[in-house]
Structures are given as structure tokens and as C-alpha cells.
């Protein structure tokens, strides 16, 4: 698998996800500056977490207009996998590669902690190595993770099996107690229709190393490597 991470001014989880990818591929993962207009041949593009452009205006709004995003869009059209984590999810909604928006957390505070997620679909290159309804522990770290969309879009996401992860309690129950940020329908991550784009607020790269306290994020990267062997 050939992977690259896009770096915007203010990205700060770029190195973290690079480490996780390299751990699974055993190969170098390229870093691409946002001002570039071309991408090398790739199987996976990651838009990392952080505070692109300081989250000024709206999280991800300015980065969505970076030159590289035109090329990212073109690649997704040709089927290349794109993973947007946290601020990367913001960028994907701002470019309308994914529907909906991410509002300020319901509690109006930044939240950094491990949360439980229920795997809602295994039918994607990102989630194939998990079991359906499996509860995994992945950290969140964001101000703006409160997913919102209109009822028709929500119904479409559900009908098309495009909700990848939901926040849940330790037993896998979907309820208010397990929802850290007020997201509609407890949504933590969604897929596009073609299922080659995943946007998610939690950080799978943060728990992919036992020394850091868990490895529930690792199957995502291992699964991508298996699915995208080039």
C-alpha cells in the first residue's frame, strides 16, 4: 500500500498517523505539503488531525480551499481511499466530500479522552478488520465534534449503511451517556456512497501501540494494508 499524509499549516497529528501507517506497512509514508498541486501514485490519502489554519473561520474551512484538495477530490473520484481523522473529517465535510457538519461540542469544551465506539459496518476497506457491533476503545480530542445533518441525509446515511462508527457505552449501547459531544444519532464516523472515504472524529492512530495503552486502532491500518496491497 502506498500512502501519503497531507500537511496543512496547523496540522499536528500528521506525524502520529504516519507512524501508525508505517507500523502497518513497514514502508515509508509520504508527507505532502498542502500547496502541492500533484500527488504521486497512491492507494491511501490521509487528512490528519490538528488545527489547520488555527481552526479560524470554521474548523477545516480554509484548508478545504488549499490547492492540494482539488487533486484529492480527483483521486477519490478514481477510487483512491481517503481517511480524514478529526480535523481531517472537518476538511472532508467542508469540501462536501462527506455530508453534514461538525458543530461545537454540546458541552462547549474541548474533550480529550478514550471513548467507546461501536463498529456499525464492516463493509469498507477501513473497517473490514473489525466485527460488526464490536466495541472498540479509541481516543477523541476535539472542540468541534458534534455531528449534525438534516433528517433526509441522516436517513440516507443509515439506509445506505454509511455510518461507520457510533459513540456508545461500554456495553455497546447507543445512548446519551455514551455520547461525548452531542453528535446526532451518536455518529462518530461516516463513509461516502462509494465507501472509499471515511471521516471520523476519534483518533485510531492514538491507540495502535500497546505501550500507549491499547491497540484497538491498529486493525484499521492493518486492514487498509490488506485491502490495498498494490
Amino acid at each position, binding site marked *: 500500500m502506498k500512502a501519503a499524509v497531507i500537511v496543512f*499549516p*496547523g496540522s*499536528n*497529528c500528521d*506525524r*502520529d498517523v504516519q*507512524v*501508525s501507517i508505517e507500523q502497518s506497512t513497514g514502508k515509508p509514508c509520504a508527507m505532502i505539503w498542502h*500547496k502541492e498541486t500533484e500527488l504521486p501514485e497512491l492507494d491511501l490519502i490521509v487528512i490528519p*488531525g*490538528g*488545527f489547520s*489554519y*488555527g*481552526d*479560524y473561520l470554521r474548523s477545516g474551512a480554509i484548508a478545504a480551499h488549499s490547492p492540494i484538495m482539488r487533486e484529492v477530490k480527483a483521486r477519490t473520484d478514481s477510487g483512491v481511499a481517503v481517511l480524514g481523522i478529526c480535523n481531517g473529517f472537518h476538511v472532508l465535510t467542508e469540501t462536501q466530500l462527506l455530508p453534514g457538519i461538525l458543530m461545537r461540542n454540546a458541552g462547549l*469544551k*474541548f*474533550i*480529550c*479522552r478514550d471513548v467507546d465506539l461501536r463498529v456499525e459496518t464492516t463493509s469498507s476497506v477501513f473497517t473490514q478488520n473489525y466485527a460488526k457491533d464490536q466495541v472498540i476503545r479509541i*481516543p477523541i*480530542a476535539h472542540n468541534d465534534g458534534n455531528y449534525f445533518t438534516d433528517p433526509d441525509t441522516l436517513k440516507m446515511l443509515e439506509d445506505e449503511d454509511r455510518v461507520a462508527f457510533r459513540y456508545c457505552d461500554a456495553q455497546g449501547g447507543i445512548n446519551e451517556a455514551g455520547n461525548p459531544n452531542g453528535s446526532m444519532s451518536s455518529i462518530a464516523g461516516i463513509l461516502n456512497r462509494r465507501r472509499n472515504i471515511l471521516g471520523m472524529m476519534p*483518533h485510531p*492512530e*492514538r491507540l495502535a*501501540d500497546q*505501550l*500507549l*495503552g491499547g491497540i484497538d486502532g491498529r486493525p484499521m491500518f492493518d486492514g487498509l494494508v490488506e485491502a490495498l496491497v498494490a
Partner: protein
Amino acid sequence: MSKITPEIVKEHGLTEDEYDKVLEIMGREPNITELGIFSVMWSEHCSYKSSKKWLKTLHTEEPWVICGPGENAGIVDIGDGQAAIFKMESHNHPSFIEPFQGAATGVGGIMRDIFTMGARPVANMNALRFGRPDHPKTKHLVNGVVAGIGSYGNCMGVPTVGGECEFDTSYDGNILVNAMTVGVADTEKIFYSAAAGEGYPLVYVGSRTGRDGIHGATMASAEFDDDTDEKRPTVQVGDPFTEKLVLEACLELMATDAIIGIQDMGAAGLTCSTFEMASKGGVGVEMDLDLVPKRAADMTAYELMLSESQERMVMVLKPGREEEARKIFEKWELNFAVVGRLTDTGRLVLKMGGEIVGDLPIDPLAEASPEYDRPWVATSKPAILDAADVPAPNDPCAALKRMIGSPNFAQKRWIWDQYDHMVMGDTVQRPGGDSAVVRVHGTPKGLAITTDCTPRYCYADPFEGGKQVVAEAWRNITAVGAKPLAITDCLNFGNPERPEIMGQFVGCIEGMGEACRTLEFPVVSGNVSFYNETRGEGIRPTPTIGGIGVLTDVAKAVSCAFSAADEDIVLIGETNGHLGRSAYLAEIEGRDEGAPPPVDLAIERRNGDAVRGMIDDGLVSACHDLSDGGVFVALAEMAMAGDMGAAIDAPDTGIALHAWLFGEDQARYLVTSRDAKTVLAKAAEAGVPASIIGRTGSDRLTVGQSLSISVSELKSAHEDWMPNFMSAP
């Protein structure tokens, strides 16, 4: 030119004697810009005029120290050609006036100090002290400070991995916000601030200069009064996004060899940074203020020189390397301006509009900075409080529950949830333990980091308190298995012009110095914050210590959480049941009496070295140092962290039970082990008292036959206080 009146001199915080010295150095009356420069350079904040004499007595050298006090931060060798660069700094006054921006810019400033020296910041810590919880301002200040710290560190992508938070009425009018940053650099790639090279370009990078924060350093060198709120305009506004860009651009440029010297602009901005660079390098500087990037076109020389706008750096480049550097800063969308040249005149010459607007001699100004031997009186030694004079509680479990649910013991998750503590992917031990542990990226090594202070002890007996502060930091680093390397100190005190306050300062420094020498735990950086007083009421003496240690194999680090059932719990160190100035006495009896526990540094060292050896040998599954609240609180903390109880044998020591449970004798640890026999043998070999006091298991913490409390009951008391407090109307 405007005449400098005695009123103007006074407004600038200079005494008559100091102004006479200004006239002598200048050989004429200074203009207003020059007077402003003297004022900030000689402010307590920049000149350390009251503390210098005593700071010189601290222990600052050990073979692993690469750079001690005097630079932007301290540097220690962590092996394999790598160095840890770290410092703690106060931002107390601004945080009280405007908590969000005050705290945020404190964090921004300390990170700049670290990356100025070539290190990538890898961890932030903070030690916070607020007034009593029911003081009308406390909640507002907690909210603002925590949000401000989070906003800056989170955006920078540097994890905030731990710290401390205490509430005490002595901070009602002067909160303490002490922020620490640790960075890692290659020993071959460390940058210093000294300027050198006649004609070499002086370069300004980062944010534009605005009118914010003018005279911040002077503000931080005076007491608060009723007009404190009017000082809000002296607080700077932070832009962490720009600082993230400055960080990346600086590190990118530092990978080349274009930089001669570099200095961040902190307190007193352009003035302090150019003076320091020039003074250290023994050169002069000619600067054209027209070239300084500005936010407002009509800024005066006075404003430009004294602005404390954030996210700015100044550097001296090798000649001919300007374009290479410019390209890097432009890539990161930052200002870059050659604003001057180095000269051989030994003077700082400022030009604006083609005219000279300031001309000051550098060395005389720096060297003649006042140094005071302030009168001081030693704090009288309090009498030792006999444990027999402290009534036993009816129900020690209820007392324990009350203590761990009290503001100072309650879990601070409400705070650290707002800090990204995992970014950078190397946080091995998260907030809440004895020390935070971060892996040194790409290596098997780890750094253990802690901040500590027990103002209760320092107030009662500054000397013993000063010793204890250093000893506790050393112990916290030892408790995770790391070798303690060095400390940074952030010395928060009241008005040094009062002899009793100066006496507290002198006592603490002497105690710290002794502990640093015996524990081989030198001070490599720090800062002093005086005038933490409002209307004549000083804070408790609060010499906060930030300590770091190194683990050669980070996988060997242990935490304080009980990790398995049926393990023996071993108490290491000698227990005498010292209740004077204890948390028990304060929280349960509401008394603040007696002498603090004495610290025997030789025993501290012997016990700690033995514990570290046991951890390194893999004998220990959990370890916790004993401090506030003694054995019982430590057991509760281990139980809550591991979600597992323990059965403790009723002690048979001749010490009253409550003194045994809550006494704060120093140099002690609790460890758990599957092989207690070997632990006891190792302890005996080292001459360290050790005994098995119980076993892990069940969901209750019990002592003997009669005392029992469930871990979940303890947890709810411990976890609920802070969120309830903050959400209450």
C-alpha cells in the same frame, strides 16, 4: 523632546536611586523610549534584582548538565546524543487579570523558550493554584485558565501531560499559573542566544508588533490593588496557530547552519531580546524600527520597543543566508524582516524615520542592573505537634472519603480532559499519576516529568518546606522508575520588600539548595515571581518545582494503579505518624499547626535509590510515593486507579492508628509485588525499612477487621467534586 519628570520616572517603576544611575550611565537625560527600556530591563521580572543574590547559592551543576540557569531554558544530557531542554515559568499576574489569555500566553511563552534552543517541545505541564472554591472569582478563573492553557497547547500539538491544581484562600487575590515545557533536541543542534559577527544581519520573524502587553513586565513586578481590572490592556493576546508555524519554521531553519544566535521575544519584547543577545555576545546593535513588521502604522519607538506581542523571535544569521531563511518563513506564511545589523560599538542604536530615537550602552545597562540585598527575617520554627494532640476520627474510612473528595485531593479529570494529552503519540503515562511519562520519539527511552510544591510546609518552615519540595519531585520521578536528572524552579512569593516575605524566600532557597546537592538533582532553569500580593496580603510561599528524569527503557515504567489481585503491598521507609501540617490536620480538623515533617535527605536518597532498583529489576508491579494524606490516601489512590481493593493488616507499631494512616513522614513509598520476599531482601540489603502491610484484591479497601470502604464509593467521592463544583450555578 519631552522632559522626564519625577512622575514619569515613578510611573515607570524606577526608584530615585535607580534613576540617578540611569543619568550616570547615559551621561544625559534619557528620552522616553530610553527610559522605558531602562524600566523594563531593570524591572524585577527581567532583572531578578531582589533574588539574584540568593539564586546564586543554588546547586546548578552535575556532569549531565549541558546548560544551567541563564539561558532560555536548562539542558540536560539524556544519552545517545540527545538532550532534554526544559523550564517552568509563571504567568500569575496576567492570568488573574484575564485568565484565558493570561494562561494561554504563559504556555505560548514557555514553549517558545524551549524551541528557541532548538528543541521540539514534547510535553507541557502546569501547576495551578486558585483561591478557595467559594471565593466569587474562583470558578471564573478556573474556567478561563484551563480553557486558555488547553487552547494554546492543543493547537500547538504538544501534549499537556500533567500537573497539579490546589485551592487555598491565600491565593484568593493572586492565583498562580506556572507552566512548564520539556523539549528534546540533538546535543549537536542546540541554539543559544549570544549574538556575534560585526555587520551580521539581525532578523525579526513571526507575528507583527502591536500595542498589546506594553509594560507587562512592569505590571508583573508590582502588587495588585483595587484598580487591578484596569490593567487588562497590559495582558497580551495569544495566537497559537502562528506559534505553531513559528515552531515549524524555526526547526526547519535550525536544520541548516544559518543561525548564529536566536532569542524569543517574551517579557519586554524587542528590548529584552536584543539586549540579551548583544550583551551575551559582547556586540552592539543598530536597529531600524521602520523595518519592524507592525500592526498599526503609527506606532512609536516607545511602543515598538516595549510591546509584548506574542509569537515573535529575533535571530542573527550568517551573512548571505537571509534569502534561504526568508524562503522558509514565507513558506510558513510568516513575517520575515532584516531589521538591523550587529556593530562593534557596544551600543543599542535605534533609528526611525532616518533619525536616531534611542542610543544606549548595552553592557553598562545590563551590568548596572540593580541588585538588592533585601533585609529579611527568618521564619521562626514552629513547635512539633504531638500526634496525641490530634484527635482520632470516629470513622477513619469516612475521614478518608472526605479527604479524597475535598477540593485539593479530588480528581482533576475535569481539567485534563480539556488538554490534549496524547498528541505526538508518545504519552505512556497520562495525567493523574506520580509523574507523567512520555517516550522519547523513535527510541526506547522515556522522560518522567512532575511538578510539585507543598505551600503548607513552606509557610510553616521555609527551610524544611524547600527541602521537601525538591525531595517530593525526586520521589515522584523515582516512583515511576526513572532516574531523576534535574529541576526547574518557579518561585512564587509575596512582596520582597517585606522582610518576612524575603525571609520565606531565603529559607526556601536554602532548603532547596541543600536538597539539590544531596540528591544530585540540580536546578537548571527557572523564574521568580514576586509581588504576589493583594492589598498587603501575600500568598503562601510557593516554590513550585518541575522535575524530570530519564528511563532507559520506557516499557519498564510502573504506574500507581494496583494491577493484579493477590499481590503483596510493601510499605517502604520509616513511619512515625507525623501529623503536623498534614493534609489530615487541615482537611479534617481544620487546623494549620505544628512543624512540617522533617526531610532527612540521606534517607530520602537511600530509600529512593532502592525503590528505583526494584523497579528496574522488574520486581514491582505498581509504585506510589507517599505524600499528602499519608498511607491511607496513597492506598485509596492506588485502588481507585486500578479499580481494585486491598486488605491491609491492622498495624502493630505502637503508633496511633490515625497517625499511621494519615501521617506524612517523608521518604516513603508503597509498592506491590508478586515477589515480596525479594523486595524485602533488597530493602534489607540497602538498609531500608520495609514491611508487608497487606494484599491487593476484592472491590473494597479494608484495614484490619473493622475498617472497610468500597472502591466505588471512594471513586465517586473522588471523581464527583470537580465536575459538580464547576457545573454548580
